[in-house]
């Protein structure tokens, strides 16, 4: 009804009507030009392709498929790479639920995992995404070494309290931090019962060198002063189908990492892949402080039948850098 009246009014007003027609024509013309240009452009690309074939590149797509692309079809993304990675990093890898298993009977505090992690994430010696702790549950029980990282909880208390969605949980279970958005309130640190989070109190390691580099949210690199960082389950490596930095670096076969949906975890040292459910069942796996209801994605196998005797850590604590 309304439309009708508008139509009528337009027809009664010749100036309006003509203006409308004019706009219409412009639109048509524009579409025609665009189509023509598009055709010309694709033709041009086709020509170029014909001219220089053979130079193909193998690329990894977002859904982890290898594709072969002619190098001519590749063009730099006009979008800001930081932004692009931020968007990609918000979505997990579809159909996956990452899970880590830590076998305490094999840990002898070699700290190779820590070194690899700190190297990858540009951390100072006193900054841990992953730390090996000397544990003793009660005076009567034996001490053991326990690697402890972010537990990537399914009910993450740190994410609940974040005021700005800077830390978030992805569909594949990983809890990430967007350092570009973090306001540095440190509420997540206060909320985490596993002390998994660190803060950049002073300028991050080599911050001068990395200044201006595109920020990769799946690696938290370059690190940013006044923001939070923590274990990311090496989200960047998971995307490439590689095991996390710490898992691959362990010389003693402590770490297993895999996909709960596949019911499989792969040992980082032996590269042996085993069934997750069987590994957990056969070894009496447990989780850290499950009574808090955080639903961690990290499992621990108890330190029984140890491969190495317990040795208290002798290394000095690092100085603040």
């Amino acid at each position, binding site marked *: 009804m309304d439309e009708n009246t508008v139509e009528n009014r337009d027809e009664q007003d010749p100036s309006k009507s003509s203006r409308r027609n004019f706009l219409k024509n412009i639109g048509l013309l524009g579409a025609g030009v665009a189509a023509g240009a598009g055709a010309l452009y694709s033709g041009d690309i086709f020509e170029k392709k014909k001219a220089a074939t053979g130079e193909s590149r193998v690329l990894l797509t977002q859904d982890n498929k290898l594709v072969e692309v002619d190098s001519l079809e590749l063009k730099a993304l006009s979008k800001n790479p930081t932004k692009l990675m931020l968007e990609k990093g918000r979505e997990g890898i579809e159909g996956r639920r990452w899970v880590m298993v830590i076998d305490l009977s094999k840990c002898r505090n070699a700290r190779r995992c820590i070194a690899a992690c700190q190297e990858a994430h540009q951390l100072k010696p006193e900054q*841990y995404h992953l730390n*090996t702790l000397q544990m003793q549950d009660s005076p009567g029980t034996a001490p053991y070494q326990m690697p402890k990282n972010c537990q990537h909880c399914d009910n993450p208390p740190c994410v609940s309290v974040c005021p700005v969605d800077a830390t978030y949980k992805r569909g594949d279970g990983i809890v990430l931090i967007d350092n570009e958005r973090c306001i540095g309130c440190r509420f997540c640190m*206060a909320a985490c019962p596993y*002390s998994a989070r660190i803060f950049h109190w002073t*300028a991050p390691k080599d911050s001068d060198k990395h200044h201006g580099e595109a920020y990769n949210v799946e690696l938290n690199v370059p690190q940013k002063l006044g923001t939070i960082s923590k274990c990311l389950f090496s989200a960047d490596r998971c995307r490439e189908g590689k095991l996390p930095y710490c898992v691959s670096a362990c010389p003693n076969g402590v770490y297993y990492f895999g996909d709960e949906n596949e019911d499989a975890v792969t040992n980082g040292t032996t590269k042996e892949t085993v069934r997750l459910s069987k590994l957990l069942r056969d070894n009496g796996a447990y989780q850290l402080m499950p009574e808090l209801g955080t639903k961690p994605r990290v499992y621990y196998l108890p330190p029984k039948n140890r491969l190495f005797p317990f040795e208290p850590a002798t290394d000095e604590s690092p100085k603040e850098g």
Partner: protein
Amino acid sequence: MDQIINDLSHHIRLNKGFFLWMGFLALAFLACLYAYIQQLRYGLGVAGIRDYISWGLYISNFVFFVASSLIGMLISAVLGLIGLAYVFLYARFQSPILWDVTVITTYFVISLLLLFLPMIPDMAVLYKRFANLPSWLKPVYKVLSLNWTDHPEQNRIIHRSIYILLILIIPAALSIHTVTSWLFALTVRPGWDSTIFGPYFVSGAFVAGSAAVIIAMFFFRKNYKLQDYLTDLHFNNMGKVLVLVAFVYLYFNINEYLVPGYKLKRADAVHLKELMSGHFALTFWLVQVGGLLIPIVLMLFRKMRKPLPLTLISIVVLIAAWFKRYLIVVPAMAHPFLPVQHVPDNFKVYSPTLIEIAITLLSFILVLIIITLISKFFPVIPVVETAKEKGLDPLKSNES
């Protein structure tokens, strides 16, 4: 009538004392501002807080300001949370910080209105009848008095507005303290993971707030010569209020420490031991006994509710209230569930740095500056109300 106006408003002038005091504040302000600039430049590393004890003086101070409902809390909020704009841009409804920012803003606006509305008739009267009103303040008073003529309709609007505000401020005040307590109670940390943290903080705020009011009363009475208007009776009554709220606070303290202390769950046990006989024991007992128990006992005596002793007691209570916030914030962070290992020593024990202390002082200086300015430019005690209580009609006598 003129005498009342003079008595209650003669402080509105810029004398030598004012300039000296403001000069001192400005100097201190600049010194502390330097510290703050250092922090902006080099990051929070200039403070003593580190990965485990990541909330220190700043948050303790913020909680203290919220508790004593000082204007400084807003400043403190800004100091503590740089990038406040972000909070509103990406605000998550689930985060207590959003609630806190919302509640503090609301409470601030309501407080400002409650401060301003009763002052409208005063400013109209002073504009017309107070000869000593500094000339540069006259246009300000003229604008802010909103053409007040004591018209019945105007009175009706003011009274109704104040009435609504007084109703609004009750839930707002309860919310501000409760939500601030939730910044802690909504985590699982031993020492914070408590269901009574809301009322605990509300009652604590009553104690700190009452003590602050008594100190301010004493100060204005002394400096602005208001003995006839802020009488011993006022102090006596405020003393009674303080005793009452301190008792309530004591009651919540007993609950807060006895209940986990009876069961001694592992993490709670470590926390309580650190408080009562460990690293924080001296502060803890000074605050609990010296800052709460002894003041309660003293204030039971009428003599102690005279202006001077009551003010001294209030000062002690207010200082203890500050340290109480420190004891709520810091020890709970010093002992997380998992051991603190392989980190530098300054990560394990918290000691505030000079810069951190200076920045904390900065917020206090700002509060003092704001209070000084407000009390120098506006009447501290409502003139018209006092006059009407004494059966006088300021504007009418003006017309006659």
